[in-house]
C-alpha cells in the first residue's frame, strides 16, 4: 500500500474512533459540559491532561526546535514539564476543593469583584485564541503534506471533527476523546523514535540511546554531534548560546505560565476529590514525560541524520524527502558556489527570513528563489524547523506505515489541544460573562445552549485563523505563556496562600503584570523588531522570558497595594480556610 493510502486509512480510523466516543459521551447538563460531571478517574484525567497539554507545537515543532537550538532548547523541556510540579503542589488540589467550573469563577469569588472576573475572562480569551491559531496551522501542515489536500480543506475537516465532539459532548466528550488521542499520539511519537534509536545506536530506548555510542563506532553520538556542528560553524550542540539569565527567565516564564494556563487548570476540576486532583497531576506528568524525555533524543538523532544525508550530496541525487518538502515550500536550496552540491553550514542561507519561490526551475531542477543569496556565509540550505518530526521517519528511511502513523499522531495532538481550548473559551463566555455577570437569571438549559453556541462560534473563528494564519503566530506564543505567568499565576497562588490579599491588590497586580509584559513583547516583536537583540533588552532578558519579570511586578504590586487598603470581608477568609482543608 502506498504511504498516502496508509495515511488516509490511519487518519480515517482515528477520526471514526473520536466520533464514536463523542456519541457515547453526550453531555446532559452544564455540570457534564463544563467539568464532565466531576467523575473522571485520575488516570484517565492524567491522559486527557497530557493530550490537552501536548499540542501541535509539542508534537510537531519541539523536537525540530531543539535539534537546531541544541542545549538552549532545554528551556522548553524543563519549562513545559516543571510547571506541573507547581500545579500539583500549589494550585490543583485547592482549586478542585473550591469546586466551581472555571478559572475566572475562582478569581471573581475570591476577590469578590465582577471586574476582576472580567479581567480574567479577557486574559483567558486572549491566551486561548493565541494558542488555537498554532493548532490549526499544525492541522494544515499535516493535511497538505500527507493527504495532499488544500490547507483550507484540511482545516475545515479538522473543524468539523472538533465541532462534533466539543459541541455535542462538552468536557465529557472532550475528556474521553483526549484519552484516545493521547494513546494515538504517544504511540505515533515513540515508534519512529525507537526505530531510529535502534538504527543509530543499537539501543531500543531512545532516552538511553541518546547517550550511547554510534553503531559500528566507539564514538558517543553527542560527542560526534558536537564535533560535526563545530566543524560546520555552529556552536557545539551541548553548549548554550543564550546567556544564563535569559535561559533562567524563559524557563521560569514557561513554568509559571504552564501552571497558570486555564485550559490545563480546568482539567483538575473534573476529578472526584482533592486527593484525586493531586494524583492526577502526577499521572499527567508521567504521560507528558514519556514524550518530553524522548523529544531531545529525537532532536539529536534528527540533527545527525540530517547533516549526514544531505551534506555535500549533489542535488540531483539528493534524497526524495528533500525534494518533497521543497515542493511544499518548507525547504529551499540556493546553489551559491554553482557546483551542484548541497552545502549546509551555520548562518541564514537567504536574505529575508522566509524563501520566496519564483515560478522557474534551476538547471538541476531545484525551485529558484526571488531572495538574494546571503553572501556572508556559505550555507545554501533553508530548512523550516517545523518539518523535523514529520520528515524524520523519511530521513531515516523507515517503512511507510510509520510515516502514516506520525501524520495521525500530529492530528491527534493538534485536535485534542484545540478542543480543550475551545471549551475554556466557551465556558468562560456562557458561564462567567452570561450567567454570572450579564444574564444571572437564565436557566441551566439555556446556559447549556449558550455554551454550545459559543463553542460553535469559537470553532469558526479558530478555523479562520487556520486558513488565514496571522503572520505573527510564532511570535504570539511568547505572549500566551508570558501573560499566563504575569496575570493568572500570582492571582491564583496568592488567592490560596495569602488570605490578606484583597480585590484592590489582586486587580492592580493582574493589570500591572499584563500591561508591563504586553508592552515589552509588543515593542520588541511588532513595533521595533530590529531592536530585538540582547544589547537593547532589559537586563538581557528576551521577550520570551519577560513574563517572569511581569510576574514579579504582579506579586510586588498585589502585596503592597493590599497592605495599604482595607481587609477582604470575613466570607473570603472563611472561603480560603475551606479550600485549604482537603475534605
Amino acid at each position, binding site marked *: 500500500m502506498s504511504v498516502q493510502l496508509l495515511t488516509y486509512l490511519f487518519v480515517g480510523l482515528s477520526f471514526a474512533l473520536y466520533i464514536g466516543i463523542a456519541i457515547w459521551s453526550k453531555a446532559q447538563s452544564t455540570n457534564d459540559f463544563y467539568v464532565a460531571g466531576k467523575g473522571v478517574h485520575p488516570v484517565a484525567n492524567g491522559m486527557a491532561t497530557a493530550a490537552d497539554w501536548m499540542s501541535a507545537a509539542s508534537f510537531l515543532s519541539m523536537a525540530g526546535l*531543539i535539534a537546531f537550538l541544541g*542545549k538552549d*532548547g*532545554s528551556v522548553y*523541556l*524543563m519549562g513545559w*514539564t*516543571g510547571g*506541573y*510540579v*507547581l500545579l*500539583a*503542589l*500549589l494550585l490543583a*488540589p485547592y482549586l478542585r476543593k473550591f469546586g466551581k467550573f472555571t478559572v475566572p469563577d475562582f478569581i471573581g469569588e475570591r476577590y469578590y469583584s465582577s471586574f476582576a472576573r472580567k479581567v480574567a475572562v479577557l486574559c483567558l480569551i486572549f491566551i486561548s485564541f493565541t494558542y488555537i491559531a498554532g493548532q490549526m496551522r499544525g492541522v494544515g501542515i499535516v493535511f497538505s503534506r500527507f493527504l495532499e489536500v488544500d490547507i483550507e480543506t484540511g482545516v475545515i475537516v479538522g473543524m468539523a471533527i472538533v465541532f462534533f465532539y466539543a459541541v455535542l459532548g462538552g468536557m465529557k466528550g472532550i475528556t474521553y476523546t483526549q484519552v484516545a488521542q493521547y494513546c494515538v499520539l504517544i504511540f505515533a511519537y515513540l515508534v519512529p523514535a525507537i526505530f531510529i534509536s535502534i538504527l543509530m545506536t543499537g539501543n531500543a530506548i531512545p*532516552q538511553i540511546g*541518546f*547517550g*550511547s*555510542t554510534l553503531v559500528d563506532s566507539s564514538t*558517543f*553520538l*553527542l*560527542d560526534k554531534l558536537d564535533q560535526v556542528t563545530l566543524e560546520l560553524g555552529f556552536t557545539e550542540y*551541548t553548549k*548554550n548560546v543564550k546567556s*544564563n539569565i535569559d*535561559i*533562567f527567565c524563559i*524557563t*521560569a516564564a514557561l*513554568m509559571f505560565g504552564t501552571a497558570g494556563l486555564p485550559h490545563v487548570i480546568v482539567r483538575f476540576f473534573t476529578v472526584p476529590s482533592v*486527593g484525586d486532583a*493531586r*494524583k492526577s*497531576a*502526577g499521572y499527567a*506528568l*508521567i504521560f507528558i*514525560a514519556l514524550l*518530553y*524525555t524522548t523529544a*531531545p533524543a529525537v532532536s539529536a538523532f534528527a540533527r545527525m541524520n540530517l547533516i549526514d544525508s544531505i551534506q555535500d550530496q549533489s542535488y540531483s541525487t539528493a534524497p526524495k524527502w528533500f525534494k518533497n518538502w521543497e515542493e511544499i515550500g518548507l525547504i529551499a536550496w540556493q546553489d551559491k558556489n554553482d557546483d551542484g552540491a548541497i552545502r549546509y553550514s551555520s548562518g541564514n542561507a537567504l536574505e529575508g527570513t522566509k524563501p520566496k519561490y519564483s515560478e522557474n526551475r534551476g538547471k538541476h531542477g531545484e525551485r529558484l528563489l526571488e531572495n538574494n543569496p546571503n553572501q556572508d556565509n556559505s550555507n545554501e540550505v533553508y530548512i523550516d524547523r517545523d518539518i523535523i518530526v514529520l520528515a524524520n521517519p523519511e530521513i531515516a528511511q523507515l517503512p511507510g506505515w510509520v510515516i502514516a502513523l506520525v501524520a495521525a499522531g500530529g492530528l491527534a495532538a493538534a485536535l485534542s489541544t484545540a478542543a480543550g481550548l475551545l471549551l475554556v473559551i466557551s465556558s468562560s463566555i456562557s458561564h462567567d460573562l452570561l450567567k454570572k455577570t450579564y444574564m444571572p437569571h437564565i436557566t441551566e438549559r439555556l446556559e447549556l445552549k449558550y455554551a454550545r453556541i459559543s463553542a460553535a462560534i469559537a470553532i469558526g473563528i479558530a478555523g479562520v485563523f487556520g486558513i488565514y494564519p496571522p503572520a505573527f503566530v510564532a511570535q504570539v506564543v511568547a505572549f500566551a505563556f508570558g501573560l499566563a505567568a504575569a496575570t493568572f499565576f500570582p492571582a491564583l497562588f496568592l488567592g490560596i496562600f495569602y488570605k490578606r490579599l484583597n480585590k484592590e491588590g489582586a486587580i492592580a497586580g493582574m493589570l500591572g503584570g499584563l500591561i508591563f509584559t504586553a508592552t515589552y513583547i509588543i515593542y520588541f516583536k511588532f513595533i521595533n523588531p530590529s531592536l530585538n537583540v540582547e544589547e537593547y533588552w532589559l537586563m538581557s532578558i528576551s521577550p520570551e522570558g519577560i513574563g517572569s519579570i511581569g510576574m514579579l511586578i504582579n506579586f510586588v504590586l498585589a502585596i503592597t497595594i493590599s497592605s495599604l487598603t482595607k481587609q477582604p470581608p470575613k466570607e473570603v477568609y472563611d472561603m480560603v*480556610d475551606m479550600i*485549604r*482543608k*482537603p*475534605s
Partner: protein
Amino acid sequence: MDKRNKEYWNSNLKIVSVLLIIWFLVSFGFGILFSDFLDQIKIGGFKLGFWFAQQGSIYIFVILIFVYVYLMQKLDKKISQEEDSDQ
C-alpha cells in the same frame, strides 16, 4: 479544631517548601546555573549538566509529585484519625 487546622496547614507548607527547593535545585540549579560546571563530569555519553537540562530534571519532577501525593495522604489520614478520636 482551629488549632488542628493550623497544624495541618503548617505541615502542608513544610512539605511543599522542601519539595520546591528540590524542584528549583534540579532545574534552575543543575540544569542552568551550575550546568557548565557539572558538564565536566561525564556519565556514558552525557555531560552531567546537559543530562539534567534535557532528561534528569524531568524524571525528578515526576518523582516529586508522587512523593507529595504520598506525604499528603499520610497527613490527611493522621488528621482524620485525630478527629475521630475526639468524638
